[in-house]
């Protein structure tokens, strides 16, 4: 109701009080033999794997809570962490938000509980995302190395090739839209900063370098400018759509064939299968187009980890829970077979059963192979900022202005850079442009 949704600080306070109350009722029982842990995650049917853990560890009880997917959960988590109580022992955090929570010191260094012993079992880049030096702030769960899903039937009909470079991609986009003005080679959702950062990652951008409270920000680097110019140009030409993704119109565009391809991540193939069932058999997967024909670079978009919060009264057991769920053979296999997550664990990435699995939706193609290969070409030196919410919100705002013509796409990197540096400084970081 528009008269009533005021007084946000008051609401926030009420929320804090509530969480404090909730926090008081949970936990406890450190004297008794069994330990109760709270685990926050939004993965559907996660209880199956949690039950497996409890069977293997009768002295640890786990209370699984779905506190919202992504942002809503982070808001609750942050409130609880700030309030000093009410946070779970173990929590799902996406890769891009790890520094946001580890930099203020909210997460337990899992190295002291032997996390580094399992380091070798994860794809290199995933481990470098969860660790800093010898410190380990989370255990990788699933990931999203990027690739291209495309409609083979549409490309065939208009005699187009599967683009292997971005230059080719642009040419094919023009040809397709010229041949049929109702069709677009793809949709570039400017509201999806995670995907855009993935594209910048692939182009070689390293927007953030964090060391303690020193943050080096390079959001107006040539690689960032290259990516934004490329997509901004295609959007301006009108040969690529720019609808926001994961909206009804966008789903309709995918199932009706308005968009002939989707630049996406390894979790995309199964997701698409559920959203555009009527197009079964017409899709194929290909590696990401490259900036130069001799390159072979991918990037990551999405994926999660499990971390242990400093509020946990049983960090040892919490670490045990996180590591077992992320590393034991039984649960790590069911994430892939039941929940269709794309793994970070080498034993699965290297296994034949995973690589050889055919997908009827993709005309029997062994889609996983494309993304397993992509996972090997994700640069390991990419870092996220310690204030990723702000980065994403600024990107969406500025790109929104650019898409309305209030700002040139070419002006976005410089403005973004200025805003981020001044925000970082105002938040007490020592920020410098690069």
């Amino acid at each position, binding site marked *: *109701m528009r008269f009533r949704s*005021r007084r946000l600080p*008051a609401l926030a306070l009420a929320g804090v009080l509530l969480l404090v109350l909730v926090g008081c009722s949970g936990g406890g029982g450190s004297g008794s033999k069994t330990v109760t842990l709270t685990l926050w995650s939004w993965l559907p049917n996660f209880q199956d794997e949690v039950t497996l853990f409890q069977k293997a560890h009768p002295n640890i009880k786990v209370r699984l809570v779905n506190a919202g997917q992504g942002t809503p959960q982070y808001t609750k988590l942050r409130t609880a962490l700030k309030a000093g109580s009410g946070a779970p022992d173990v929590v799902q955090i996406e890769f891009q938000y790890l520094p946001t929570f580890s930099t203020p010191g909210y997460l337990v260094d899992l190295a002291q509980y032997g996390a580094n012993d399992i380091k070798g079992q994860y794809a290199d880049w995933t481990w470098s995302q969860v660790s800093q030096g010898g410190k380990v702030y989370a255990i990788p769960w699933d990931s999203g190395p990027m690739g291209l899903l495309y409609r083979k039937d549409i490309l065939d009909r208009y005699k187009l090739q599967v683009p292997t470079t971005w230059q080719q991609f642009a040419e094919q986009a023009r040809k397709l839209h010229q041949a049929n003005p109702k069709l677009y080679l793809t949709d570039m959702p400017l509201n999806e900063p995670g995907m855009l950062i993935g594209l910048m990652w692939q182009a070689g951008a390293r927007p953030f370098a964090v060391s303690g409270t020193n943050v080096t920000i390079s959001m107006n680097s040539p690689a960032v400018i290259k990516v934004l110019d490329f997509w901004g140009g295609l959007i301006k030409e009108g040969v690529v759509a720019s609808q926001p993704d994961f*909206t009804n119109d966008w789903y309709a565009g995918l199932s009706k064939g308005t968009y002939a391809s989707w630049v996406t991540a390894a979790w995309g193939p199964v997701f698409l299968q559920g959203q555009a069932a009527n197009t079964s058999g017409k899709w194929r997967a290909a590696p990401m187009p490259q900036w130069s024909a001799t390159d072979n670079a991918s990037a990551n978009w999405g994926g999660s980890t499990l971390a242990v919060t400093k509020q946990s009264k049983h960090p040892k057991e919490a670490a045990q829970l996180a590591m077992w769920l992320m590393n034991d053979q039984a649960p790590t296999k069911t994430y892939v077979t039941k929940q269709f997550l794309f793994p970070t664990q080498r034993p699965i990435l290297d296994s034949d059963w995973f690589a050889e699995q055919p997908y009827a939706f993709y005309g029997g193609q062994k889609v996983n192979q494309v993304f397993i290969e992509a996972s090997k070409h994700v640069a390991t030196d990419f870092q996220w900022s310690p204030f990723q919410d702000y980065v994403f*919100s600024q990107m*969406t705002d500025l790109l929104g202005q650019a898409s*309305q013509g209030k700002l040139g796409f070419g002006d976005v990197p410089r403005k973004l850079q200025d805003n981020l540096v001044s925000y970082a400084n*105002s*938040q007490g970081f020592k920020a410098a442009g690069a």
Partner: protein
Amino acid sequence: MRAGTDRAPTAAPAAGPRPAVGARAGLAPRRAGRRTAVPYLFLAPFLLLFCAFLVVPLAYALGISMFVERLIGGGTFVGARNYLHAFTDPSFLEAVRRMALFGVVQVPVMLGLALLLALLLDGGLAYARRLFRLTFFLPYAVPSVVAALMWGYVYSRDFGPLGQIAQWLGFGAPDFLGAKAMLGALGNVVTWEYTGYNMLILYAALQSVPPELYDAAAVDGASRWQVAWRIKVPLIAPALVLASVFSIIGTLQLFNEPYVMQPLTPMVIGSHYTPNLYAYTLAFTNQQYNYSAAVSFALGAVVFIASYLFLFVTDRRRRAR
């Protein structure tokens, strides 16, 4: 000193009309003490909740609005600096300007419609008056989040019914969620939601107009139009002013509708589309809780000034008549 002595004699007669109460109190002083305590006792549950959920949070918010807390390095007291920043913050000012534009168009349209409907119902022109009254009021009973979701579906370009009809007829699908139409589209949702509510306020006011006036007007040969324009509207002017003030406050605090529609059109509804949306983003995305509190209070000040100005202008005009 002289002032004090001057006042004394006037104070005495002022106390004059109350001897009865004073006398009774004098007879039973103990009971009087209890009697003054009793109302407060009855008020206590309300006062307690009022303090706990309004006064204390407001005071708390006012308090934190004068600090700056950093992600690194803790908090410092900055006094009014957050407020100075808010009133020169282009994002906040843009949001306020946008809502001002919204209000200047939407509020008169909505109240005009509400007045028209109220007059129609009151004039006995409509059949099945109760049914119509209920129907017009119904949108107000729909939670605004549900209303925004519903309209979001209606507006969506390829998926919504309007877009499909337009395409079927061979027109291009109208982009209601685009940058140009968005404010109007939101105005339509808000009008849909609140016209019935305002109609009810005006209709209730019309019910209290003494019927003799209509008889007198009929004797004088006034037309229905004249009765409506010369008698009904002037007599319900206070209700119209009240409805306008509520609408001005509501407009400046617009939040639910743009918040729900944001995922549908994130490029258009940015983080500071309305002042409240901006306060929300500041607190929960940017983690600038202190500044967010200051922006909330700054918005409160804007709301107060806008309402006061409106009342001032309408009051002067009424007196001028």
